[in-house]
């Protein structure tokens, strides 16, 4: 599903160069549930934006779903994001004063789907996250957990190759966090959805099957997690 080879990302900050990614190579297969972990400043955000086609690497290779991404132009990159990546953000990033249904329809709109099909697919996605009863509520009429569910429905609506979640429980209380983690796990187990969680929180990371640790722009460990935590397992002090 994802194959990267020696990914580099260099930012020019005044006179000095910042190597946000310094040669990251890994492979993620279809149907995997993986956590990318690292403290802030480790390069995980940069890695996420490259995996999510929000940014192009300075050098290195990136194959997404059999397609080479690194040399795409802006329009092609936008299309790839729209079709292959489903983003979930910490702050939900729903459009205000816009109903849940319309929020979920947004990626379809940009993908050129319209009319009844767009409506049906959005309804189905909302049903998958258990929100079929609240389709016409605006974000400010929904709880944090419900808003994140809408955001997940929006990420799923285009049937993306990868569900890419950036600290998806970061803005939620522990009870709702459990619900959201449970949702990710069931999407992975029941529908074989490829899920990538980007987090700094090892407790969240341990819910996945594989943990890739990143530090100073380099992958420092890439290990299978044989006994992933079941959603709802209490957080243990380490």
């Amino acid at each position, binding site marked *: 599903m994802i194959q990267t080879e020696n990914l580099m990302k260099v930012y020019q900050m005044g006179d000095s160069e910042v190597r946000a990614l310094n040669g990251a190579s890994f492979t993620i297969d279809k149907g995997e549930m993986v956590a990318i972990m690292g403290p802030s400043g480790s390069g995980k955000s940069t890695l996420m934006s490259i995996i999510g086609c929000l940014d192009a690497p300075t050098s290195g290779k990136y194959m997404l779903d059999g397609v080479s991404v690194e040399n795409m132009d802006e329009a092609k990159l*936008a299309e790839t994001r729209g079709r292959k990546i489903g983003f979930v953000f910490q702050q939900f990033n729903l459009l205000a004063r816009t109903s849940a249904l319309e929020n979920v329809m947004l990626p379809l709109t940009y993908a050129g789907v319209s009319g009844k099909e767009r409506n049906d697919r959005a309804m189905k996605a909302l049903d998958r996250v258990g929100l079929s009863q609240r389709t016409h509520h605006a974000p400010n009429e929904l709880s944090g957990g419900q808003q994140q569910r809408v955001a997940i429905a929006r990420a799923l609506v285009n049937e993306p190759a990868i569900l890419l979640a950036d600290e998806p429980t970061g803005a939620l209380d522990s009870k709702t966090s459990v619900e959201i983690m449970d949702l990710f796990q069931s999407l992975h187990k029941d529908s074989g959805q490829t899920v990538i969680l980007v987090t700094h929180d090892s407790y969240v990371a341990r819910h996945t099957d594989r943990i890739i640790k990143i530090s100073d722009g380099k992958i420092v460990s890439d290990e299978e997690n044989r006994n992933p935590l079941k959603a709802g397992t209490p957080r243990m002090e380490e």
Partner: protein
Amino acid sequence: MLFSENFKIAIRALRANKMRSVLTMLGIVIGVATVVALLSIGKGATASITSSIQSNGSNLLTVSPGKLQSGPASAGQSQQASYLYYSDYQLLERSLADNVAAIVPSYQSSYVVAHEDESFSVSVKGVTEDYQTTNSYEVAEGRFVTDGDNKSQSLVAVLGSQTAEDLFGGLTPIGKTISVKGVKFEVVGVLEPKGSSGFVSSDDAVFIPLETGYNKLFGSTATYNDRKIVNSISVSVTTTEAMDTVSAQIKFLLRRAHNLTSSDEADFNVLSQSDLLSTLTSVTQILTTFLGAIAGISLLVGGIGIMNIMLVSVTERTKEIGLRKAVGATRNQILTQFLIETMTLSVLGGILGILFGVGLALVFKATGMISSVITADSIFLAFTFALAIGVFFGLYPAYRAANLHPMEALRYE
């Protein structure tokens, strides 16, 4: 992505900040309203001048004294006064026959005209019988000056409707006596109102036989070197096609009578009504353009207001832009979205402005203060201008939005 989708997004965004949208639109509304109203007033002025000139009959040639001044007179150059003489009229009367319906000389001067206790300063015109038809006057009461009056130098006067109203109120002036510079005239007729011809009212005048004027009223002011002078000679031509021919004949005859060599400039000019019309129209057109330009500046200011607000809006909605890009919006789609939003503002403002402007023009018209004519092209012009301003001032904010980096936009706080 469909236009209607973008339009829906635009409406939603504008409704999210109603007050701000309304205030921004107000700049365009005021700009467009002033453009429409001022252009209507300009067109109104042109139309009223045109109609009053056309009411004089379009086949009229007017000969008046003086050189056609092109450029300012250089300092020290002695400006030789030039005159038209009564003999010029007689010459034309003798020589012109074909295609000419009437030739009317006139001499006019301002006098205080009195009846009992009422007295007004009025233009007194010495004319002949044909003056009435060449200048399209209708007699309301009594009769006009006749050739007989001229032959016998009768002390008779015909009043313009305004003068009759001023001197006699509602009472009938026929048979009454008015006094001009101590000379008593019997009023024999009153004219129908004709309306103002651009700047001067044609109804505020007293008409007397020209011969009576020369011999009993005007005195030495109406002569030069003992020759009787006239202010103008009107030549009524039978057909429009013959205008040029007759005009040329008049020029030829008068040049010879005034002893001008072929190199001399003419000391008189022959103007047709259409010449007069085009001169006045060009003046009002300049005025209209000038007014329109001033209004255009206010529209420009409105446009800058739009750009300002759109830039604020782009900054405020950075996260939204980032998200739209994350779910697949291309740069062009973001550009289009913001451009349509600006255009919605300016077009809506344009439509409201047109309504206000038309309303304003109608109010002017209804109150009779200023004549105004609303034309489709002035509305079209104002609307196009508003739309162009929307595009022009919307492009930069939209461009800024479109070029935001998606990741940075998403993380913008």
